[in-house]
C-alpha cells in the first residue's frame, strides 16, 4: 500500500511519524544532560510542562475531535465538572473521578440529550 501518493506506507509512517516525533524527545535528553533533580531550572520546566498539559486538557474538552465533537458542549463541560467533583468527594480517588465523569457523559447522551 502507498501513502501520500507515492511512498510505501511504512516508509511514510517512519518519516512522518517517528521522524517528526523522536527528534523532540532526543533533544530533550540532550538538554537535560546537565540538569539536576533539585535545580531551579528544572522547577521552571516542570511548571511549563504542567501548564502545557493543562492547556491540552482544556482544548480536548472545548475543541474536541471525533465522536466527542458531536456531544453537546454543555454536557461535555458538565460531565467534566462532575468528574472533578467525584474525584474530591471520593477523597482524591483518580479512578472514581474518571469513572464518575465518564458515567455522566454516557448517561447524559442516552437519557437527556
Amino acid at each position, binding site marked *: *500500500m502507498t*501513502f*501520500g501518493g507515492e*511512498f510505501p*506506507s511504512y516508509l*511514510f*509512517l517512519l518519516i*512522518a*511519524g*517517528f*521522524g*517528526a*516525533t523522536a527528534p523532540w*524527545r*532526543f*533533544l*530533550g*535528553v540532550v*538538554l*537535560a544532560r546537565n*540538569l*539536576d*533533580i533539585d535545580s*531551579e531550572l*528544572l*522547577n521552571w*520546566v*516542570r*511548571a*511549563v*510542562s*504542567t*501548564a*502545557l*498539559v*493543562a*492547556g*491540552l*486538557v*482544556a*482544548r*480536548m*474538552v472545548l*475543541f474536541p*475531535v*471525533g*465522536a*466527542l465533537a*458531536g456531544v453537546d458542549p454543555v454536557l461535555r463541560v458538565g460531565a*467534566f465538572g462532575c*468528574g*472533578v467533583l467525584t474525584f474530591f468527594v471520593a477523597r*482524591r480517588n*483518580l*479512578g472514581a473521578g*474518571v469513572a464518575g*465523569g*465518564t458515567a455522566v457523559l*454516557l448517561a447524559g*447522551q442516552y437519557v437527556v440529550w
Partner: protein
Amino acid sequence: MPDSPNKPPAPQWADDATARRAFWCGVRFAPSTPAVVLFATFIGFGALAQATGFSPAEAVFTTLIVWALPGQVVLVDEVAKGAGLVTAAFAVTLTAIRLLPLTVSLMPWLRGAGVSRPLQFLMSHFIAVTVWIEGHRRLPGLPAHLRAPYFLGMASAFLVLNLVATLIGFLVAGRVPVEVAAGLLFLTPIYFLLSLIASARGRVDLMALALGFAIGPPLFVLMPGFDLLATGLIGGTIAYGASARRKARP
C-alpha cells in the same frame, strides 16, 4: 484500580531490590487507572485507523514508533486526506514539540549510575503525557538506582497494553456506538486533569495548572499549532515567577 499516593515513601519492595526486581515491579504496578484509560483511548485510535484504511499492522506500527496519541491521530488524519510526506511530517511535528519540555523535566530522574546514553535515548521514546505524569508520581519515592529499571518496566507494560488495544480497536471498529466512542475520547482529558491535580506538588503546580487551563483555549483560537507551547511557556513562567517571588520575600 490501585493508585499510588501523592508523595509515595519508598515502597517496601524497594528494600534491597535489584534492578531486575525493580523492572518487574514496574510491570506489576502498571495496571492502574492510567492503564485503563490508555487502553480505552488506544482502542479509539485503532478504530480510527481502521476507518482510514490502515492495515492492522500499519496501525500497530504507528503506535509503536510515534507513542503519542495526538501525533498519531494527526498522522492518520493526514494520510486520510492524502497529504504529502512533508505536509504530514510538519503537522505531526507541531504536536510533538510538547514532548520536549516533558522529556527535559523527566530525564533527570532517569539518569543514574549505570544508565548509558543509548539507554537514555531509548527511555525517552516512552515519554508522552501519561508516562510523564506517572513518572513524576512514582519515581521520586524510589531509590535513585531503581528508577530507570522501574520506569522501563512500567513503560514496557504500557507499550504492550497499547499495542493490544490498537489491535482490538481495529477489530471492533464500526461496531462501537457513537455515544461510547465519545466516552472513550472523554477519558483522556479527565484523567490528565485529575492526575495533574493528584500529583501537584505545592502552589507552583496548581497555579501552572489553572493558568494553562485559562489561557490554553484563547491561544488555540489565536495561534493553532503553536498554542500548547505558548500556553506552557506563558502559564508556566508566570506560575514559576510568582512562586519564586513569594519564596524570595522574607
